[in-house]
């Protein structure tokens, strides 16, 4: 890996994102709008807002980074820039870590804005420090990015890439324990939810609402999300082939 090439890649990705002002505004603004919506949907039941609001802070970066990365990588593949880059001294790790730095920075900003709003004016109650929220959200963003990167290899066009959201993310959402208690699920579904990384991302946020320090449950959640991101990133790296038919 080469630091100059990695940072140049991160800078280039951020510049592309910044140029597309509408996408940048949506990335940073939509979580806040949804949180406000949620706050007043549960106007009379603040406990529910606490219970659902914190996991949402984890889900926003996961979902948005999944989408943005899969489309961005698909563009690199279809525009020929990826193939071009792979004929230069740029290493695959330079490219992947460059993307991770850029989208990680966006995720920190996104979560920073959303949590400031949620914990401040919207009155979301958390037991743990906001720094832990941002840390977990960052890991979730990297997980979404890594999955998007990996899956983008299997999309031929942007329609297919966007359909991977309902195909791969919605089932995880249903099974992650946010909408339905996992203990009430049919056993096979519970086993499935045990091996899906989003389960741990949501569980981690729920831990933060009830416990102030880093307990063993939260440590497991953080480790699983980080491990799943690393695995998806390695799988994604394997899809960046220098040779093709």
């Amino acid at each position, binding site marked *: 890996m080469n630091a*100059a*090439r990695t940072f*140049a*890649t991160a*800078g*280039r990705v951020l*510049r*592309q994102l910044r*140029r*597309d002002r509408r996408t940048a505004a949506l990335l940073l603004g939509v979580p806040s709008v949804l949180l406000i919506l949620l706050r007043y949907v549960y106007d009379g039941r603040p406990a529910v807002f606490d219970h659902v609001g914190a996991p949402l802070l984890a889900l926003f970066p996961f979902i948005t980074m999944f989408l943005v990365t899969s489309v961005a990588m698909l563009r690199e593949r279809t*525009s*020929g*820039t990826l*193939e*071009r*880059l*792979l*004929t*230069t*001294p*740029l290493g695959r790790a330079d490219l992947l870590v460059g993307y991770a730095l850029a989208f990680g920075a966006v995720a920190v900003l996104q979560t920073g804005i959303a949590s400031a709003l949620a914990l401040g004016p919207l009155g979301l109650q958390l037991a743990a420090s906001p720094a832990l929220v941002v840390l977990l959200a960052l890991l979730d963003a990297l997980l979404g990015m890594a999955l998007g990167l990996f899956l983008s290899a299997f999309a031929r066009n942007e329609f297919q890439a966007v359909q991977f959201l309902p195909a791969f993310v919605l089932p995880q959402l249903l099974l992650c324990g946010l909408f339905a208690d996992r203990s009430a699920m049919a056993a096979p579904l519970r086993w499935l939810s045990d091996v899906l990384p989003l389960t741990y991302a949501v569980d981690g946020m729920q831990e933060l609402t009830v416990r102030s320090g880093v307990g063993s449950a939260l440590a497991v959640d953080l480790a699983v999300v980080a491990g799943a991101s690393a695995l998806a990133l390695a799988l994604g790296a394997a899809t960046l082939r*220098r*040779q*093709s*038919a």
Partner: protein
Amino acid sequence: MTSSVHVRDLVVTRGRVEVLHGLTFAIEPGRVTGLLGPSGGGKTTLMRALVGVQSGIRGSVLVLGLPAGSPELRRRVGYVTQAPAVYGDLTVAENLAYFAAVLGVGRARCQQVLHDVGLADRQGQLVQTLSGGQRARVSLATALLGEPELLVLDEPTVGLDPVLRRDLWQLFGSLAAGGVTLLVSSHVMDEARRCDRLLLLRDGHLVADDTPAGLLARTGADDLEGAFLAVAEATA
């Protein structure tokens, strides 16, 4: 002198179809070699094999003395794809700056190559707002940045007006005079006369490997278009 590119019995299969059927040739250093032939003849496939991005290869492909696709070649070989591979949502200068960082070359070099391809006055423009020919020249400029020893250019002059075409061929000539080896593909026979040497590729077969003058003499044709037709008919 040793050759820059040495290809022996190259067979390429894409999908299930054999696209190149056993090519053997060499490319001399410091020359502009034209890779000509009708669309679908296998020019792009051959270039991809030389830069090491084509799978399904049999035979031997040596580039600057190393097997095609060797990591050491990544700084020594420049490749410009047929469709411009640049970022449409970045400006000309931003594209150049990124590829310069990837190749580890300085800012001054960006100015130089932009000047060489005639885009010095377009630095701040978004690439997606450029014309097709301008975009192709941005792509070319990024490949020039690293001062590669071998430049593989896939139809770099398609869609350019005659003045720009002439300017680019002059650029290729001066690069070759400076010791760079160029392989330039085109499906326009008219460009063949600008080359030091010609490879004619038709349906995956190399039907001629000669100088323009040699080809004219051998076929007795009046122009290179006629020479190509004569060769094509003789091998059909």
